[in-house]
């Protein structure tokens, strides 16, 4: 049912985490998240990547964001992220970023877009702009939380930027498999974000050089 051809998604944040820690002491977590079945008909059009169902926003097809919570030293570099508007859609639909990350919003369509958010974690309004807008509008997301992106012109467009207070996070593949590497040893809470109302968590203890296996649930 879940396509197997989807491979893991590398993220800049994970790479940053990898580079930050001492190589010999690195630990890792891997496992599988039981994703919600994707058999329900989406409320909105199928091509939308963020769907609303019974008041819950979730990525479609289902994906999970797995992140490790704890106190980590801030990374030296915070690579920028991108939320592209393409074919009257946001891409990617679900974007996890670390707090303080600057996200660019390039418009790759031939029409105006007006990206804005009223979410408490980040309120902003980029105004109307076209593809040839220079510089590309950016926003820095410095409060952790879920930010719902909308387009003032295209009411169907919806995306989620998940602003996390940790550099250690990863998107699962479509089958729910994930792997977080380059983690410092210690006791942490491993969280899985499934949708706007569901976050799973689990206490983990990472030993140096070991790979912990953690499945959800």
């Amino acid at each position, binding site marked *: 049912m879940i396509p197997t051809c989807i491979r893991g998604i590398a993220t800049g944040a994970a790479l940053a985490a990898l580079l930050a820690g001492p190589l010999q002491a690195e630990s890792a977590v891997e496992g599988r998240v039981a994703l919600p079945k994707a058999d329900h008909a989406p*409320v*909105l059009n199928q091509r939308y990547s963020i769907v*609303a169902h*019974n*008041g*819950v*926003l979730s990525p479609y097809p289902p994906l999970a964001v797995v992140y490790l919570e704890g106190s980590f030293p801030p990374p030296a570099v915070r690579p920028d992220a991108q939320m592209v508007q393409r074919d009257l859609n946001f891409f990617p639909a679900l974007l996890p970023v670390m707090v303080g990350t600057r996200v660019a919003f390039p418009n790759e369509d031939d029409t105006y877009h007006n990206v*804005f*958010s*009223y*979410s*408490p974690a980040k*309120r902003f309004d980029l105004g109307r702009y076209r593809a040839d807008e220079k510089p590309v509008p950016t926003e820095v997301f410095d409060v952790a939380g879920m930010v*719902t992106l*909308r*387009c*003032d*012109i*295209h*009411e*169907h467009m*919806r995306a989620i930027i998940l602003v996390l207070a940790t550099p250690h996070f990863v998107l699962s593949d479509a089958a729910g498999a994930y792997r977080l590497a380059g983690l410092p040893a210690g006791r942490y809470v491993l969280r899985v974000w499934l949708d706007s109302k569901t976050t799973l968590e689990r206490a983990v203890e990472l030993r140096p050089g070991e790979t912990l296996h953690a499945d959800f649930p």
Partner: protein
Amino acid sequence: MSAKAAPATGGVASFRRRLLLAMMVVVSGTAALMLLFIQRNMAQAARAGFQREFAAELAALHAAEDVRHASLAERSRVLARKSRIHAALEDGAPELLYPSARDELLDLAGPDEGGPRDAAALRARYYRFLDARGRVIRPVDAQDIGGLEPADEVKLALAALPDTPQTGYIRRGGADGGQPVDELIAMPIISSESGETISALVLGFKPESLAGATGDAPISGGILLGGRLDLPTMPAAPRADLERALNAAVAAGGGDAGEIEFRGPGAPDLVFFKRLNPGSAYPAAYEVSVDSLAALVASQRRLGWEFAAAGLLVLAGAYLASHVLSRRLSAPVERLAVDAEANRAHWHRAEAALETTSQELQRSARFSADASHQLKTPVTVLRAGLEGLLAGHELGPEAREEVAGLVHQTFRLASVIEDLLLLSRLDAGRLQIQFSRVNLAPLLEALLDDVGAIPDPFNLEVDADIPPELWITGEKGYATLILENLLENARKYNQTRGRIGVAAFTDGEWVVVAVGNTGPAIPPSAQEHIFERFHRGAVGENVPGHGIGLNLARELACLHGGDLRLARSDDTWTEFELRFRAAPGEGAPP
């Protein structure tokens, strides 16, 4: 006669009067009914036409109103889908709701820049959002979203959020004079996340139908809201009456539309009411359209006068026509009445004459009978005396011849008396024929023999064509008498070396005996009288006879059911035709 004619004339006059009256009643009644019918029809048609016109005008207004409404609803719908409004409601930013909406609604609810009237009509005066329980979300700052007194703002609330757009009307307390009623459109805002109605956008407009800008049309419009009627064109006093009437009609009818006729102080008005917001969650509001019936009433009154005039004309015409007609119709009746009167007089006279005649007839019949009887006896006595004389030897040959002539005369006398007796019995209706089968042939042969045997000064030649069998129904004696009479006549009224022709034959159910002679022609003027009693042909003055023979023969033939007529009479030939009824089964003896 004149004494009788007077009441008849009076009767005819009264008949004429009654006829005229009846015709007048019928004609004027019919005319009145027809006029009434036509007048009603025309009045109804005029009223229907008026209503149609009114309805058409209203329909045009409503069509324009519907377009405006649809346009408003569509704009509201577009607004209700705006991302920012949804974001404010769904993404937890209620404080951003009105500021966001202000930008989005700028074109709809912004300041009036004095654009064209259409644009002004589509401009919202104010707007508010309702929360999940239908209550008004109070704006932090009412600037740019339209000021509204708190007491009026509450009226925008609904008991629950609607699923569909709702139209409502509110009467603002702090009304700005001329236009105290606002039209509301509550557009539900449906969450794209939960699919539920999370809010509603309520926009307040100035209602177009109340603008009353219907050109020079006599229609004036108003709104009935919460039992109160706003109708700026009507003075307060009749408006209160109309308000009561409308409230009663709405309460009684229960429908969303209706029509009443309102009698105000002036001419009556035709009032339509139509619910402006059928099925709405807001209180019911009715559009009230008033069209004065003054023109219609005036035209109907004019029509009434025209019809009254026409009625009078028709009545006059009817009177004239009735008069002429009754005169013409009564004329034959009048004539008939006069004729009847004359007829009656004639009839009376005829009746009296008939009575007299009848009495005379009876008297004469009685007289004939008496006379015959009284005469027969002396004749017999006379003849006996004369025969006695002949039988004796006292008379000389001359005297004997004389007496023999006298005896012969007594036979003639007896024969006349016999005939008279027969006639009197006939006249008295006492003669009965004893019907039986009689063969005429031997009777005729015998009679012809007798004719031949009589000494004849004319040297007559007798032709007879008689079949051997001629059966009739009748009485032999009378049949003989008839034939005797005819043959006697044929012999008497003849000429020297003349001829007698007798032909008998059977013709179907008749037996016909034709007796002809070469006698003098009977003049046509005399032909119709020959069968009358005591009539003798002018030619026969020197011929013996008493003028009752033919009469008697014919009466007897008729009594037999037959007939006797003159078949021919000219210079060469006179012929009588006698008919008897043939006896059934002719040829066979009884």
